[in-house]
């Protein structure tokens, strides 16, 4: 690891100030990607600004038809939150599949979606539920937030403050982990919203990051059942192919995980 300067911000305003004052600052919101990358000397930020201790970024609020999760809330809190389990059990269950207990106790929602790893789990829930991302500057709809591999709509000086998830009628997440990394090799989040619309988000499989499957959404809109997935032709075009899984195999996994998710929802 290269030399770096560590700061612990007490407020979002202080974090923004520290970030703007740094030559090449990075926000630390759990660090499960940033720190290994630094240890491998693949990243060399001049300053690390730790935002996990900021009170206004922490916490879970479930009221009405929305569950709002602070950006610095660890996965373990979402996994075990009675409020989340009551309102969106699929979200709590998804959080419980991320990494291992060590990861879940330190990793955060904001850190995960800001990093936008194509194999991360949370982007599936954010896009699959059509959540709203709140930042210190604006609100961003999930459909506009993820823009590619490790790419988001966030500006350089923009900090996610919370994510508001609409409470669906039914939802579930099914994932097939990469045997080595245990990241999602393919994960499918299905949701039937209270207005009857259906959203299906696929993570781990797309060569441009998390995406919605219009074919699955169409099939499940007319028939919300695992059987409906059988008739859907999932194309391998645009899917990742690597030493662990070809695009064709990932296309099969999308179908299988969609069936599992619908059955579990």
């Amino acid at each position, binding site marked *: *690891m290269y030399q770096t300067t560590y700061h612990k911000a007490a407020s979002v305003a202080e974090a923004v100030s520290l970030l703007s004052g740094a030559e090449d600052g990075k926000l630390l919101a759990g660090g499960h990607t940033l720190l290994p990358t630094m240890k491998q000397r693949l990243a060399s930020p001049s300053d690390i600004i730790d935002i996990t201790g900021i009170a206004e970024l922490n916490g879970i609020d479930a009221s009405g038809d929305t569950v709002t999760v602070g950006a610095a809330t660890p996965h373990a809190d979402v996994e075990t939150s009675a409020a989340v389990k009551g309102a969106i059990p699929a979200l709590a269950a998804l959080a419980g599949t991320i990494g291992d207990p060590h990861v879940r106790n330190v990793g955060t929602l904001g850190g995960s979606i800001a990093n936008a790893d194509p194999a991360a789990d949370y982007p599936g829930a954010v896009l699959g539920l059509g959540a709203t991302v709140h930042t210190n500057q604006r609100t961003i709809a999930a459909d506009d937030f993820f823009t590619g591999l490790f790419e988001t709509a966030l500006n350089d000086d923009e900090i996610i403050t919370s994510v508001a998830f609409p409470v669906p009628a039914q939802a579930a997440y099914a994932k097939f982990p990469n*045997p*080595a*990394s245990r990241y999602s090799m393919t994960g499918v989040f299905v949701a039937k919203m209270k207005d009857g619309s259906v959203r299906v988000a696929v993570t781990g499989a797309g060569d441009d990051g998390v995406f919605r499957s219009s074919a699955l959404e169409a099939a499940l809109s007319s028939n919300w059942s695992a059987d409906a997935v059988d008739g859907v032709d999932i194309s391998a075009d645009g899917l990742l192919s690597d030493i662990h*899984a070809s695009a064709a195999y990932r296309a099969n996994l999308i179908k299988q995980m969609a069936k599992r998710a619908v059955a579990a929802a």
Partner: protein
Amino acid sequence: MGAEGIGARVKRKEDKRFITGLGKYTDDVELPRATHAAFVRSEHAHARIGGIDASAAKAMPGVVDVLTGDQLVADGIGNLICGWAISSKDGSPMNMGAYRALEHEIVRHVGQAIAVVIAETDSQARDAAEAVSVSYEELPAVASVEDALKAGAPQLHPEAAGNLIYDWEIGDKAAVDSALSGAAHVTRMEITNNRLAPNAMEPRAALASYDPAEEHYTLYTTSQNPHVARLVLSAFYAVAPEHKLRVIAPDVGGGFGSKIYIYPEEIVCLWASKKIGGRPVKWTAQRAESFVTDAHGRDHVTVAEMAFDADNKIIGFKVNTKANFGAYMSLFSSCVPTYLYATLLSGQYNIPAIYCDVQAVYTNTVPVDAYRGAGRPEATYVVERMMETAARELGVDPTDLRAKNFIQEFPHQTPVIMCYDAGGYDAHMAAAKEAIDYAGFPARKAEAASRGKLRGIGTSCYIEACGIAPSAAVGSLGAGVGLWESAEVRVNPVGTIEILTGSHSHGQSHETTFAQVVADRLGVPIDTVAIVHGDTDKVQFGMGTYGSRSGAVGMSAIVKAMEKVEAKAKKIAAHLLEADEGDIVIENGEFKVAGTDQAKTMTDIGLAAYTAHNLPEGMEPGLKEGAFYDPTNFTFPAGTYMCEVEIDPATGQTEIVNFVAADDFGTIINPMVVEGQVHGGLVQGIGQALLENAVYDDSGQLLSGSYMDYCMPRADDVPSFEVRHTTTVCPGNPLGMKGCGEAGAIGSPPAVINAVTDAIGNNDLSMPATPEKVWSAIGAAGMPQAAE
């Protein structure tokens, strides 16, 4: 045996320090004024080095020096050697290319060391290593044996035309060809044994210190065999003469073969310590370095043909293997696919004719050498996949086909050198079948099918040659060293005992099990016995630990030394008790006159020996004896492993639902320790079968160079194992031991793959059987992939 003797399930003496974090590993050793080394490594698989510019690096903070290969050559440091000479079938010696500890002309694999930066801190050394500018002229590279043997393939070494190191053979080709042509049935398979990265928990490390006053070197390092390291560093690399070099291998966190070898980094640290004026030089591998520098394992491509007569008896076996050696010949690489592989192709079976030829091939990859099992897993995988497939082709039960061909009489001379001394193959097969409820499998398969799962069962009957090895025998086959072991037993004046052994423990529990052997003989508590190992200044000499040899060879040396100590102690006791020497018996730590209550304790004997006030006429003072033990034969552990899997046809995901290991290890000193060895070996074998793969792309870049992509088995990847033991005592050594360190890794891969192929009805499946491969094979077999 006593509460702590042979056969007792004694808890490990070493666990207290390991579990509480008090183990002392090489990286824990602190020497005053130590510097830190960081290596500049090739980013190309094959390239000519145009120049190395270290001027910027030398000017960086904390940098002591930057050293390169031309300086190493100028100082007379020798090239790395291969310690086992193999000749091709035409009689020509093996074609070995030059292997330098630092390469300044042509690099041949990603990760090869080019230069070393010595700095005040580890970070400073790494920063400066990045500032060393190497200009490369990239050369075409080759990563697989098939590509390396093609006409026009990139050539690695001028010494090895066509990248061929040797083309070796064993057995009677004419007899095997005749059997194949006259056979009632021939089973033919193309079998790949996947490349593995060893991944010991503790990365390799070296801390070298040169004392200019005494012109003496000390090396702390992660070694399985510190004396062999000293020998090779002295005799071949010319770092220092043996009496001016001390090698210490303190606590070592796993080896699996990868820490047998003397690598470039250890050589360079020793040389560099003198070069910079005697300050110590420390290097500890980063995990990413381990992936591209620790010797890899396996990587065979094989075609095998097995001939059966009309009664389903094997009448001939023909094997052609191409072995990937990587870019250089590692220390014992040459013997792995020859004398540790082809000599085991008879398995547990009576096979009248065997022929095997092996081509050893250079590629632009990390050197390949012995890894847990070393040749024997590769042999077992070939033999046992052939047996299972043959049974399916012949329409007979795979366990029946094996039993029909089992060797029943011992000693048994195979057509490929080995003479099996003892065994009872029906017994461990019966134990395994009983433990897994073989007869109940069809019902379990039907029940799984009702849940939409494909259930399969697979068998593997492995044999291995351990306890290496009779020195004269291996010498005649090309080995550069003898493979005996030594021990010294010191009884202290207060009666406590120190055992100095040339074996080295890096996870094997020697501090407990070796003490149990002493406790068994003397009836003393194991806490009064200390096991001393891993330091060339303390221990007389030794050949180290690998090849499951520490029990059969290392403990045998201890027994021999103990016999001498006991003989002298009995003389002292008889003298003190005014009894006849022949009447003295050893019981519960005391030397007694048989049938009386007259006795002397170990303390009495020790005090008498060292005060020397009242010893028998003419007896030397002291009570210390040494012994060297050279085995008379290999030992032949064998067993039957059975694996049962369930596969989700929708995803190809395999779950091991049942795994039984029934082993014959001969005498067992500590069943708990042996079970631990078996469990660990099974997990490594299951890792190879389902998860692990060192994958190179065509340009020689390692694609699975971190745990994000190289899949190490985790606890939830494996079931709770059922371990059984059957026993035939090894007649070749005093304790009747065979060795248990590698069996799990040797026997398990074919059991797993045979179970998976049974479940999916397709024999065409290679390791690791990833979900995608299994899913594709299910589709190729025409089975429904998405059961509802």
